[in-house]
């Protein structure tokens, strides 16, 4: 199977760039991201009114950001299309670049507005406490080393899963959170994402190559009483388990394909459009989603 490691190498680079870029941020260091405030809400004594205000600000800005991001994507694509031509019209490109920069500016303004609104809602004591808490985070160099080491462990674990024919999608799902967190400077949260991926990959949790159990495992007695005889035989238990399962459930009534190539082939043969359900896990068969 082809190596799919979530562009781990790229993420390794990102570790360096993002952490390094945080050496000095004269704007960011004077504002408080909503996540930081919420994360330390108990430590700074955030009131319900302040909390509700922040939640409301976030709700308002969420739709606006989606819209601006989509606009930015469109303008970037238009810029790329202009640059793709053999002869590039400088005037057109620069005009399009202005549109891209305008979009980026609006995104930055929106970010800044939220930051200002939140800061103005906090008391000077709360602001001082948050600065203290922020200063207590590890140095960028230490973080970078830690991230790189963990990322290599994730990469090795994913390779191991792939070599064993296991589906690394769940790790991919978790790792998708890493890059945005790094870009937002949320290193603690990014670190926790790496820890979660490593936990999922760990031998102990997934047992691909479990360590030998200690010989002493047989020694201690159970903390509960094992009945003298089993309640049922294995065949009776199988029946009991089967009786729990419902074969005809509504969500299995659609015959989902999982292969894009098969879907396109059938679409061409039948003249029907594809309906793509893009999802993180595997909801189309006997699995949780």
């Amino acid at each position, binding site marked *: 199977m082809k190596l799919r490691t979530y562009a781990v190498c790229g993420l390794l680079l990102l570790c360096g760039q993002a952490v390094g870029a945080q050496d000095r941020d004269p704007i960011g260091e004077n504002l408080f991201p909503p996540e930081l405030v919420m994360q330390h809400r108990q430590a700074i004594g955030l009131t319900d009114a302040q909390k509700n205000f922040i939640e409301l600000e976030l709700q308002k800005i969420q739709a606006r950001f989606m819209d601006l991001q989509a606009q930015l994507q469109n303008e970037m694509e238009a810029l790329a299309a202009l640059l793709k031509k053999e002869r590039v019209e400088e005037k057109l490109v620069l005009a399009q670049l202005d549109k891209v920069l305008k979009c980026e500016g609006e995104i930055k303004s929106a970010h800044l507005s939220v930051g200002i609104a939140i800061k103005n809602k906090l008391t000077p004591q709360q602001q001082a406490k948050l600065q203290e808490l922020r200063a207590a985070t590890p140095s960028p160099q230490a973080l970078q080393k830690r991230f790189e080491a963990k990322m290599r462990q994730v990469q090795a674990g994913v390779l191991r899963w792939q070599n064993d024919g*296991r589906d690394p999608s769940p790790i991919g799902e978790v790792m998708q959170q890493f890059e945005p967190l790094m870009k937002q400077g949320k290193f603690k949260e990014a670190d926790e994402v790496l820890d979660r991926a490593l936990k999922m990959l760990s031998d102990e949790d997934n047992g691909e190559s479990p360590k030998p159990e200690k010989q002493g495992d047989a020694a201690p007695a159970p903390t509960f009483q094992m009945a003298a005889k089993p309640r049922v035989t294995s065949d009776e238990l199988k029946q009991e388990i089967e009786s729990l399962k419902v074969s005809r459930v509504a969500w299995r009534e659609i015959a989902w394909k999982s292969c894009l190539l098969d879907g396109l082939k059938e679409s061409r043969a039948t003249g029907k459009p594809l309906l793509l359900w893009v999802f993180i896990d595997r909801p189309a068969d006997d699995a949780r989603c």
Partner: protein
Amino acid sequence: MFAGAAREAVFSNPEVIRRVNAEFVPVALKAWLMNNPTDDEEGRLYREIGRSKPAPQGICVANSSGKALDWALMFDDDKSMLAFLERGVKRFRDFPDAKKPVTTERYMRFPSMKLPNVNDTQDELPKSTSHARNEGCPANPTPRAGTVIAQVVGRALDAQGKPVADTVRQEHYVEDRFNVAVGMQESLARTVVNAGTSCFKIPASLARQFVNHAYLGQLDVSPQRAPDGGALKLCEFWAQRMSGNENGSILLRIAGKSEVAAAQDESRPDESNDGRRWEHSIKLTWEGFIEMKGARITRLLLAARGSEKLKWGSVFLKGGNDVSCLPGGHPIDLSCDVHYGIFGEPLAR
């Protein structure tokens, strides 16, 4: 949350099921493949679909060349879901393939919240019908031979101790699956040999596999997915070799107890800071059998009974139709007795 909510609120709707089966080729694509496309021809198709995506997950109508026609993340109401399908069919009639450039229309919520369109690049797309050389379908990786595929089913019980009739919502009825790797089976075999005829503790890694999959609700409420990994307060599984073995097979009797709890709220914004709030605790008593031949499990049978508490919400959940808030799901407040079953057999070659 999106996939679970979409399955419950959209793809369990009888009229949606009827129309999808009659008028579409339904394909469930893993977001991971779309968001991390390979550099081969298949990867180019995934990349083209992903190019216009409004979010990492969603519902999309595409034409036979793999050009996205419409995306939606949510719907105003049940009628809007059908209107979205109708619109997809109509646009497919106008743009069945890549002969004409097509603009992708995108909706945060169909039809009331529209996002900007995405223009066609008019790049020629491959017409691949097979995967890259020597490789299987990336959406269906094949586990190693001998891997035990374990299927899990879980039911919420009513006040009379009977399974709740609803099988759409995962907090009432859940199916899940996990693999018991060959290495883990070998580890169990070594423990069996060392124990002789004594009662012995099964390997912790295997015990945790059982416990990790026995919970009601969507993936997001897995205790393992809590920012701190959840608290495994108790996970003790004992085994005893039973007599009457035939053909070198042995039968192990299993008994166990487990207790797990986890929680998350917006003060720990790890999950993309989406405002989720949940609490989950599960207490179970286990019984069952493992049949082994040599170092391999030939049959796994486990049942568990106990109680479960689950609460799910989000700062963004304000009520209304479930289809209008697919990323957030619906509120859950469950406290009931539960019954789980796990049945596993080795993967057929």
